[in-house]
Structure formats: structure tokens, C-alpha cells
């Protein structure tokens, strides 16, 4: 696991927040918005709360030692904690006028056993490099994505649209939030990229794929290089990336601790 975050070339402060907890197989990335400094407050609350609460919840699950969690149980666990984080950010937004209207996107992944459970809200993304092909795993909750889905505009037109950065879901802007949660099978050597739109707005998928493929043996270098590419292209927004590589050998089915610890390299 490796990560890097940078305010970019235009913004004075970084409203992105991220957290990597390799021993739990947990990666969390949030891109805050609203107000002067409120964006980083929203993303900060969201990431630190989710990190701390999931650490506790997962440690309890591991101590009970009843083997792997069912996929549905993992999804429920994530959903519950996301809803709680949403309430906390929403309450904070109402408590102080300077925080009013703040919110954040969220993309997070929990790697356990041979599965990855992904939750996302808004336009922060998860990509997967498997072999030589890069796939976007999450679908943005954004106006542009909806227009593409409805055939109103094409992908090509979306690249020149003036309606970028309009998300249709965000955490902390109302008392309700609907995270999209899905589970995927992971295989050895997969490399996962969690990123804020500061990366994918500035750098094309093919450039991302090429950099991840070329530098997959050194994740920290790959993370730094992705951020450099976004900055070299103009760096108009904060840029955050988390890279996670899955170990080649499938984990042995003995001992919860070994199973958890053996997943991560770097």
C-alpha cells in the first residue's frame, strides 16, 4: 500500500483526506467540498471517523475468530459506518455557520481474504490494473456520468463539458446518504488505485495504465509519479492517490492474523 496527496498547482490548501491501514486491508480516500476550509473539515472527519471505527469493529470481528465475514456482512458493516460518518459530518455542518453545506466524496476499499468490498459516494474513483488492462471499477455519481448513461452526451463530449465536478451524491450534505457498495474477487498481482478527481481530470486512463504497469514493482514511486503527472498537466485540483497491490500467493486458510497480514506488500 502506498499513497500520496498534493494540493496541486492552483489550490492553496488540500481538501482531500486519506487513510491507509494495511494491517486491516483498509484504504479510505475523500475529496471535501464547500466553504473556505470546510471541505477539508468534511473529508477529515469522514476519513478519521471511518478509520477509527472500522479499526475497532474489525478488530472485534477478528477476535471473535469465526472465520471470514460473509460478503453481505462486510457490506452491511461498511454501510453502517458510512451512515454514521454521514451523520457526524452533517451535524458538524449544522453546528457552525462556516461549515454549512460542506460535504465530501468517499471511495473506500476493504480487502479481506480473497475479496475486496468497495463503497463510494460521488466522483472519487477506484481503478483496477489486472494484467495489462486498467478498468474503472466505480461509476461516478455525477451529472456527467448520468448524462452519459442516458445517452445525452458521449464520453468524448464529456471530456470538453463545462459541467465537470457536479456530483449527484455526497457524504454529509443531508441526513441521508446512499453509498454504492459492491464486492469483487481479487487475484494476485492486481493493483488497485483509489483517486480523487484531481488525478483523472488531468491524466488520461491510458497514461494512468502505463504508469501503473511500468512502476507496479514500486508502489510509492508509482503513487508519486501519478501525482507528478497531474501536476505537470496543470494540477487544477487537489490530487490524492492510494495504491494497493495484492500479493501473488493466495493466503493460506489458517489463522486469521496470518491471513490478514499476508495480503499487503510495501
Amino acid at each position, binding site marked *: 500500500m502506498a499513497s500520496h496527496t498534493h494540493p496541486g498547482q*492552483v489550490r492553496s490548501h488540500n481538501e482531500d483526506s486519506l487513510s491507509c491501514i494495511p494491517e486491516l486491508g483498509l484504504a479510505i480516500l475523500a*475529496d471535501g*467540498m*464547500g466553504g473556505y476550509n470546510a471541505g477539508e473539515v468534511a473529508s477529515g472527519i469522514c476519513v478519521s471517523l471511518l478509520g477509527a471505527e472500522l479499526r475497532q469493529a474489525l478488530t472485534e470481528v477478528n477476535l471473535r475468530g469465526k472465520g471470514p465475514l460473509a460478503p453481505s456482512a462486510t457490506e452491511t458493516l461498511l454501510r453502517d459506518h458510512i451512515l454514521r460518518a454521514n451523520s457526524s459530518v452533517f451535524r458538524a455542518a449544522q453546528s457552525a455557520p462556516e461549515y454549512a*453545506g460542506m*460535504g465530501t466524496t468517499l471511495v473506500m476499499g476493504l480487502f479481506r481474504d480473497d475479496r475486496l468490498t468497495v463503497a463510494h459516494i*460521488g*466522483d472519487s474513483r477506484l*481503478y483496477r490494473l489486472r494484467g*495489462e*488492462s*486498467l*478498468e*474503472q*471499477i*466505480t*461509476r*461516478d455519481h455525477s*451529472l456527467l456520468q448520468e*448524462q452519459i448513461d442516458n445517452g*445525452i*452526451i*458521449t*464520453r468524448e463530449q464529456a471530456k*470538453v*463539458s*463545462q*459541467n*465537470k*465536478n*457536479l*456530483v*449527484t*451524491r*455526497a457524504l454529509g*450534505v443531508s441526513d441521508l446518504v*446512499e453509498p*454504492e457498495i*459492491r464486492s469483487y474477487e481479487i487475484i494476485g498481482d492486481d493493483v488497485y488505485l483509489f483517486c480523487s478527481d484531481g488525478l483523472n481530470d488531468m*491524466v*488520461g*486512463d*491510458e*497514461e494512468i*495504465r*502505463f*504508469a501503473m*504497469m*511500468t*512502476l*507496479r*514493482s*514500486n508502489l510509492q*514511486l508509482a503513487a508519486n*509519479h501519478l501525482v*507528478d*503527472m497531474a501536476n*505537470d498537466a496543470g494540477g*487544477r*485540483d487537489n490530487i490524492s492517490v492510494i495504491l494497493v497491490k495484492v500479493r501473488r500467493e493466495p493466503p493460506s486458510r489458517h489463522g486469521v492474523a496470518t491471513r490478514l497480514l499476508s495480503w499487503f506488500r510495501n
Partner: protein
Amino acid sequence: MPAKLILSLDGLVLKELALSKERTTIGRKPDNDIHIDNLAVSGHHAVIVTILNDSFVEDLHSTNGTLVNGRPIEKHFLQNGDVVEIGKYRIKYVNEQAGATSGIYEKTMILKQPAAARSQRPAAEAPSTEGAAAAASVAPVPAPAVAAPPEPLPKVAAPTDEGPTGTVQVLTGPAAGRELALTKALTTLGKPGVQVAVITRRPQGYFITHVEGSSFPVVNGKILDAQPHFLMDHDVVELAGVKMEFFLKR
């Protein structure tokens, strides 16, 4: 500031109209937003649909058609400066937002819509990347192994054609004399599993960085650390026991 339309005939501006409505209609009948009383124009000739900061023009099956920048269209995604032609009339689309690097729309904003209206959809299938399948990052060839990266797709923007192109010439070993032009954003050098370094091409120039292996690359006799190292013309790089020279071709 909303986008606007400028209607003109033979170079004379007749009317300016801000695109404040979702649908702005153009035609010969008086119920149109842009009413053009000319027989070459159909009753309901075309419509401009505006969604926040984006607009489309759509021909409404008119008799004589609608042109954008001289080409007939059925539906067209308007870009700042596009000229829509209907008969002898020209309608210029002006969207000053376009190309602005600052401004409120650069910031991510939340579009409030009732949550109930949104249902979950299956995860997105990635845009096809399989077409570019080619070599792995580090090709298993004798030292100095050089990756053969896939042809960059048109979207690859980082390596610009400005400035001199860096080239590496092998000085020692079986491949001595071989030259490699550093035209890609990333070029890996070395033996996979033993020692690999990458040369990145950036607007400021070329940088070499250690990727894997227990020993680090040596430049002009000095061992590098984990940080990227800026390459100067005629620097000598030592990697996996092979010496090579970096130079800039103008």
C-alpha cells in the same frame, strides 16, 4: 454567467439572447424564442437545449437543415465560438465559461436531487483499454533490458514534442552502441528482479529514479538515493553493471 447566442445576417448583429431556458427554440413561427421570418426557415427549425453550462443544438427535421461550422448536423454539442447556420442567418454560440481555469465551476459542487430518484446501477465497465495490450513493463531481454511500451493512445499528453529528446546510448556490455530514444513518459531500464530504474520525461526535463533491486543506479560515479535525479546532457548512468550515456538530441 450563462452562455449566449448572437444572431446575425450578412455580418449585421440582429439580436443577442442569453441561454437561460432549458429549451430555446428557433423557427419561422412567432412562438419561437428566436423568431426568424424567412421562407428558408422551417416553422420549428431547431432547438438549443441547455443543461447547466452545456448546450446542444438539435435540428427539428427542418426542410433546409441546420449547419454548425459549415457542416450539416442533426444534434451537436456546442462549444464556445461555434456558428450555427440556418438559411442565411448565423447564430454564434458564446460560452465564456469555456476554457476558464478558475471560477466556481472548477470546484466540485453538489447537485441536489431527491435521493429517492437515484437507484444503484451496476459498476461501470471500463472504457476499452485492451486494444493497447502489449509488452509487460520490463521485458525479459538481456541487459540492458528496455521495456517496449505499447504505442501511446492519442490521449497521452505528458510527453510533448517541445524541447530536445533524451537518448540513452549503451557504452559497455553486449549491447554496447545501442541507442534508445526516450520518447515515452516512462522508460524502464535494467534487469527485472535484479535492478530496474525508470527515466521519466517531464516538462522540466528527464529524471531517473530507482524502481527495484537492492542496489541503486549510479550517475557520474555517485550512487543515487530513492529520490528522482535530474539528468543532464552527457550524464553517465550505471545500472545492473552496464554503463550508458544520457544525451539530448536537438
